[in-house]
């Protein structure tokens, strides 16, 4: 099913206690080269029919209005799943969609 991906991250200047806790665990495991971890959210909006520019625009609006809170979070990306913006390795290694 066509999927729109929305990625939201806590604002860079905000403390991210969850990320900090994970970074602490990685350091204890010996991964000192990983300096910091920040944890965000990925939403997958599964839609009926084709994804056109209007639907992407709607998703952009939803991302700004509801899926994120502009006071504390940034919308990093709104894109179609499987597109170049979806990152390295999308759909490989047995990932099911």
């Amino acid at each position: 099913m066509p999927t729109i991906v929305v990625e939201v991250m806590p604002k860079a200047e905000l403390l991210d206690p969850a990320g900090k806790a994970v970074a602490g665990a990685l350091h204890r495991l010996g991964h000192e080269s990983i300096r910091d971890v920040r944890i965000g959210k990925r939403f997958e909006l599964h839609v009926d029919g084709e994804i056109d520019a209007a639907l992407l625009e709607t998703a952009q609006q939803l991302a700004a209005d509801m899926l994120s809170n502009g006071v504390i979070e940034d919308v990093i990306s709104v894109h179609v799943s499987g597109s170049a913006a979806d990152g390295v390795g999308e759909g490989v290694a047995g990932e099911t969609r």
Partner: protein
Amino acid sequence: MRIGVVTFPGSLDDRDAQRAIRLAGAEPVALWHGTHDLQGVDAIVLPGGFSYGDYLRCGAIAARSPIMAEVIDAANSGMPVLGICNGFQILVEAHLLPGGLIRNDHGDFIRRDQRLRVESTDSAWTNGFTAGQEITIPLKNGEGGFIADEPTLDRLEGEGLVAFRYLDVNPNGSLRDIAGLRNERGNVVGLMPHPEHAVEPGFGPNTPAAMRSGVDGLTFFTSVIKQSVLS
């Protein structure tokens, strides 16, 4: 006076709020999130809890629930609305109060009897206090860190919209020790600590006089009743 208390999926302190309203001398009215019916109430309390599991952000889904359309209209028309803890988060997510609430800076859920300073008595829910009065009511939250950008913080301070400030301990890293806010009109108040848990001798915070005898929270509810009688 009839004061509505909205129950959302995951509300925790709705019955406590109803009890506080009754003890203060008003009639509590149970309101349901999934309706558009305020049942003709004179004021509204958004209680504490974990509405909709807080899955998106604390209060974010609740702020878009059916009854909130009516609550937002009523608040904009001047009806007194009090948001406690998750209710404060809902008010912020509904843009009835500014800023945002994030995870406590130490990462832990915290509960304690919290001392506060009353910074603004110019609101429907705080007019029974005296300016600068120090009160103690319980606090319990995991995401109670209040944040806003510097211009917003300066505006809140400059316009006297900070309603309560933490004393002794800042329990969650809230900027400028802000524990609660009021809106410009004074009808909407939100705070992280829980006044509804300090309304009855025997069940509140300890005081120098006796264990569990603190009833500082009752003044929130008697304030709104007094205002309704006078107006």
